[in-house]
């Protein structure tokens, strides 16, 4: 035990503050399985936390939140691959908040290795550190971790369930389990006799699972193929139940208007709202008001009819003031050094480049506005909410109404988009606050689109100061400083609902995640330094698809492009040379995208290519964007994408995530911007916070590679290279380098 405990302690230390306090539990707790939260009952047998056998078939539990990324399908395929059930006979459910559903991959990502150089020992350590998530019951869908988390665990869950079913069937038939085969939900004896999983499920549930070996990938039936999504048919027939669609007996409809300045109210006058017909009540919510009504539309009209005098914001109340707050962070010492190879600050002979970049705040703007339904009774609270973190919702709602977490039931539905926004518990807490005022009455709270925009946890605005040196066609030095609020540190410090105080915002610590897309790139540059200055702002910011890499990738790769041009080199060859000795899979994606786009062929006048590359979430992605000038406006005509995900579990779904992630990044790059006046977001709906539409969306060509030794993320990796690839193409077209997003400030688009 002594030696194991020592390793455990060291693991926790490198795992940093996220798991502090967990040491006392010792190592034993890590390996002891978490209790199965699923109860067996009449006609419904749970073999482990992920497999339920019912009379109708097999239900697989995917505690990962389905926000469109296809996780329910691939998670189920991991289990089904070993369990031997027919794809068309399975049902997939989300399951309750429970310790068994901890995310083992999330903490492993915070370790200070060069992620792309991870070796077997580091991989083991990454998995070991991930066990800290179990102790904290952190059931989180995010960080593109689902497949890294589930790849081994879920195949084991399927295999152990299969083996106990075989043992139960063997007892019944008087045969050794090894003599039996399994296929399509049946145990099959050599003489042809069959028992269905249903037949033996009750006995199987009492058998201790044996140790199992996972099948060789060459025998896979589902994994590695493009499966039909388990949620597709419900989603195209209108049957899919998002939390905004929850219907309960006697339900009332509510909307809220909370402070857009994230402070309280001085006073409010609800007389006009109370005079409207169909109103059931106006509730003082402390930093805002809620209206309960006969339908959602009336509630939304009524909250806007309340006259409210808001307290001013604690943060600077204009965009200019907020950007000054960010710039001022450069004056303090850096909080984080993400990489420091060589002597980046020394004088190196060659051509020096200096540049400043900036990006704006962004909204998530999920298609389904924030909503939650709550039912409060004397001793229980039920919450229905599409969310990325049910255990956080459970504890935050329990705290709100003064219950123990066990008294709060959270039903997680599919989500109409998440992009990081639905990791926040705020809307569920608001629903709980309203429901507590109406015991016994289910309350469906739906935000207007305007409320959704003004109460977002924004992707932080950020600035970068870049210095580079090139000599004789080679990169000599790159020295990078970022200034931005820290998403990780702030989301840990602030309560589920604002106000967020100046004291809480005075964050200490470091944040390598905020340097993603820059400090972790697989390049050999002799002098390569990346540092971060954390901005202590009270403006609420949050996780947004690709998080730090969403801006770090833009800053870093755009500047690499500048260095390539200054060095007189081809931008694609320049990147390939830097990656050559550092990371072969990255070289291959760059070469692939060059071949796909016919990179070196000349383009006609008014047409140009740009390449972008970002390694993020364990996967290198290269994109080439083709832009075309049409009557003075620019069209994004085509994007070629090459990505290496290590093991492509579902190529069709990965292609969808890569193109979707790229479009998400292109939309932000072309037109995404949240600005502030009087402490409030100025954008309010899709007419002033739009995204690319069908007519402006490019054509795509995607290649998925599998050269990396470990499975990589998928859901976010398409986003970071999109903005730099577009900016680099715009430079190639026009000779103009735009260093500030969105690009529509500098260029006209169709």
């Amino acid at each position: 035990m002594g030696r194991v405990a020592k390793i455990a302690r060291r693991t926790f230390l490198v795992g940093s503050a996220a798991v502090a306090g967990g040491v006392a539990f010792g190592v034993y707790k890590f390996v002891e399985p978490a209790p199965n939260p699923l109860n067996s009952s009449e006609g419904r047998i749970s073999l482990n936390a992920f497999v339920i056998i019912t009379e109708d078939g097999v239900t697989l539990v995917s505690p990962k939140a389905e926000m469109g990324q296809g996780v329910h399908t691939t998670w189920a395929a991991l289990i089904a691959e070993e369990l031997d059930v027919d794809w068309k006979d399975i049902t997939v459910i989300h399951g309750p908040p429970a310790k068994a559903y901890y995310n083992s991959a999330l903490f492993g990502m915070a370790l200070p290795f060069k992620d792309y150089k991870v070796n077997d020992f580091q991989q083991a350590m990454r998995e070991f550190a991930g066990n800290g998530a179990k102790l904290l019951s952190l059931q989180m869908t995010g960080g593109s971790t689902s497949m890294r988390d589930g790849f081994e665990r879920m195949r084991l869950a399927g295999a152990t369930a299969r083996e106990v079913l075989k043992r139960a069937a063997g007892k019944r038939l008087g045969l050794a389990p090894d003599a039996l085969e399994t296929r399509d939900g049946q145990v099959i004896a050599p003489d042809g006799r069959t028992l269905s999983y249903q037949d033996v499920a009750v006995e199987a549930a009492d058998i201790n699972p044996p140790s199992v070996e996972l099948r060789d990938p060459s025998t896979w039936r589902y994994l590695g193929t493009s499966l039909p999504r388990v949620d597709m048919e419900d989603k195209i027939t209108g049957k899919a139940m998002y939390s905004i669609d929850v219907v309960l007996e006697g339900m009332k409809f509510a909307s809220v208007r909370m402070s857009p300045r994230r402070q309280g109210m001085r006073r409010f006058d609800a007389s006009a709202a109370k005079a409207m017909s169909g109103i059931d009540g106006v509730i003082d919510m402390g930093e805002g008001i809620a209206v309960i009504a006969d339908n959602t539309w009336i509630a939304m009209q009524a909250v806007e009819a309340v006259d409210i005098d808001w307290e001013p914001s604690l943060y600077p109340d204009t965009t200019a003031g907020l950007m000054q707050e960010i710039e001022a962070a450069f004056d303090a010492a850096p909080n984080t050094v993400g990489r420091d190879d060589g002597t980046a600050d020394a004088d190196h002979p060659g051509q020096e480049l200096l540049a400043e970049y900036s990006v704006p705040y962004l909204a998530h703007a999920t298609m389904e506005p924030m909503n939650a339904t709550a039912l409060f009774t004397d001793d229980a609270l039920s919450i229905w909410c599409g969310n990325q973190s049910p255990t956080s919702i459970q504890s935050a709602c329990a705290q709100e109404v003064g219950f123990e977490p066990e008294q709060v039931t959270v039903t997680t539905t599919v989500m109409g988009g998440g992009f990081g926004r639905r990791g926040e518990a705020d809307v569920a807490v608001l629903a709980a606050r309203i429901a507590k005022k109406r015991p016994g009455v289910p309350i469906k709270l739906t935000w207007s689109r305007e409320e959704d925009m003004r109460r977002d946890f924004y992707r932080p605005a950020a600035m970068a100061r870049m210095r580079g040196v090139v000599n004789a066609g080679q990169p000599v030095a790159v020295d990078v400083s970022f200034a931005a609020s820290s998403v990780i540190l702030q989301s840990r410090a602030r309560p589920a609902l604002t106000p967020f105080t100046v004291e809480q915002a005075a964050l200490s610590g470091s944040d390598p995640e905020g340097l993603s897309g820059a400090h972790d790139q697989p390049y050999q540059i002799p002098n390569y330094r990346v540092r971060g200055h954390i901005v202590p702002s009270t403006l609420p910011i949050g996780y947004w698809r690709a998080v730090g890499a969403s801006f770090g990738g833009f800053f870093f790769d755009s500047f690499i492009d500048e260095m390539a041009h200054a060095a007189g080199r081809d931008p694609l060859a320049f990147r390939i040379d830097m990656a050559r000795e550092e990371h072969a899979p990255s070289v291959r994606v760059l070469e692939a995208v060059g071949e796909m786009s016919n990179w070196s062929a000349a383009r006609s006048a008014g047409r140009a290519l740009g390449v972008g590359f970002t390694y993020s979430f364990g996967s290198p992605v290269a994109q080439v964007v083709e832009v075309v000038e049409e009557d003075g406006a620019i069209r994004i005509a085509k994007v070629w994408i090459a990505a290496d995900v290590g093991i492509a579990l579902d190529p069709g779904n990965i292609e969808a995530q890569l193109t979707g992630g790229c479009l998400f990044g292109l939309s932000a790059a072309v037109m995404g911007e949240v600005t502030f006046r009087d402490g409030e977001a100025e954008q309010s709906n899709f007419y002033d916070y739009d995204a690319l539409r069908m007519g402006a969306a490019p054509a795509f060509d995607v290649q998925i590679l599998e050269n990396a030794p470990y499975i990589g993320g998928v859901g976010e990796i398409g986003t970071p290279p999109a903005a730099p690839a577009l900016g680099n193409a715009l430079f190639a077209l026009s000779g103009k380098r735009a260093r500030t997003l969105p690009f529509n400030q500098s260029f006209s688009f169709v």
Partner: protein
Amino acid sequence: MTVKLVVNGDALESASAPDTPLLWVLRDEFGLTGTKFGCGVAVCGACTVHVDGEAMRSCQLPVGDVDGAVTTIEGLSDGETLSAVQTAWVAHQVAQCGYCQAGQQMQAASLLSDNPQPTDADISAAMNGNLCRCGTYPRIRAAIHTAAAALREG
């Protein structure tokens, strides 16, 4: 006072005020939640339904002004038999989060009833009012071409 409507072939009566947008009558009063709320101001297309076969934004259509039979996503298929548009949507595995897809399909079905062989430019023009934040446009475009071919072949 009530408003009489025909929705997916059913005669229904709404007790909501006539200025209530059709969207909220469908969702909150009739429980037909397949039609989605996205923006409330007719700029995202998530709430698209058919009135006498024509695509309309139900969030900006007062229920008292509805002049014709309403079809929602729940009525696009013929019982368990999917429509050509829905079949193509499954074949191309279009949906990611799926929230906008009811509106996308209602818009696409309306396009195809007016124009049995739309070009890419026709599709862009007809579908530009339907926002998708997951970025499923390439598959939507492919699915519309597939559905058009299937309908032409009858």
